[in-house]
């Protein structure tokens, strides 16, 4: 078993394409995405047609996790309804995520 980080980003739907592109650049080798509703401190989202929140999970190496978290905080926290957190996860044959 190998130890990796599971980074979860919850963000407004309008950011989908941009976030996925940036995740790839930051070193993520895959992601799993689910549509979600939610409330936090900012509330208002873009448009009803754009729909609800994205909940994106990506299993990555610890250093990539840190990079993603800092990047998201720096680029999105000011203007967008976005949160990001990281959880310890164990995987089998972890090479594919690295």
């Amino acid at each position, binding site marked *: 078993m190998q130890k990796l980080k599971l980074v979860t980003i919850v963000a407004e739907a309008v950011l989908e394409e941009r976030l996925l592109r940036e995740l790839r650049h930051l070193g993520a080798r895959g992601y799993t995405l689910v549509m979600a509703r939610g409330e936090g401190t900012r509330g*208002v989202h873009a*448009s009803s*047609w*754009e729909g609800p929140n994205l909940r994106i999970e990506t299993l990555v190496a610890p250093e990539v996790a840190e990079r993603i978290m800092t990047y998201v905080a720096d680029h999105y926290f000011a203007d967008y309804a976005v949160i990001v957190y990281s959880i310890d996860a164990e995987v089998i044959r972890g090479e594919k995520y690295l």
Partner: protein
Amino acid sequence: MTILDLVRLNLLSPMVLAFVLGGIATLVRSDLKFPEELYVGLSIYLLLAIGLKGGAALSETPFSVILWPALATLALGVLIPIVAYVILRRLGRFEIADAAALAAHYGSVSAVTFAAVQTFLEALKVPYEGFTPTLVALLEVPAIIVALLIARVAMGQGGNWGELIHELLASKSILLLLGGLLIGFLAGQSGLKQVAPLFVDPFKGVLTLFLLEMGMVAARRLGDLRKVGLFLVAFGILMPIASGTAGIWLGSLTGLSSGGAVVLGTLAASASYIAAPAAVRIALPQANPSFYLTASLAITFPFNLAIGIPLYYGLSNLFY
């Protein structure tokens, strides 16, 4: 009929009543919720149906007939956001980003309001040009570009314009509207007839269903009304009346029928809540969505639906 009769007639249409019912559902905190997917499905349907019908009509319209109305529409798309921006900055003392965001919304157009004015005119048996969906498509994009341009110049920023314009043209609402238009144009009236039992006949029923949901969405914004202030409420009512009058006038100048001019006026008066919010959220994230979404969805949209449309119809008598 007096304007008041028209308002009454309009207020008791199933569409407007469904909008009210949606509002009530939210206010009494009903557990009624439209699945997101149903909302998206209905939107796809409405945009495609508007396009198809317009395209089939366009296929029988000579170029010379549509040229001038099209140019008038483009002019509205450029002028309305400029005027709106100046008013919001000077009189309303809004921040640059917020003023520009609002300008983008009021310059652009609401497809559902368009569908409502069509339904209204059809109920009154007032004819209007079949190519009006083309005008919807023409009016949707320019205002957004103009408003964002103003914002960037005012804030001294550059920015990737190519990407923005691509994103706007490839955005689902415009793609479906233009795509439907093209399909309708190429397939013609005989092609439209094949799909009419889905895309033409049940249109008003689908609109009713959609407005039920819109009523819920708009009512959820009512709480924000206090936040946005009295100025914006007034703006959300007076701006459409001004743009609407301008639209009717330009329509009359460029040879539209009186029904067509009412449609153009309503388009000018309507505020976007599909294409514009998405574009603004990406390109002007500093702008506060409370302002533009509340104004567009909770003030201008119901105003146009209930009062604006019959009003513009009444006003058209001044020009015809």
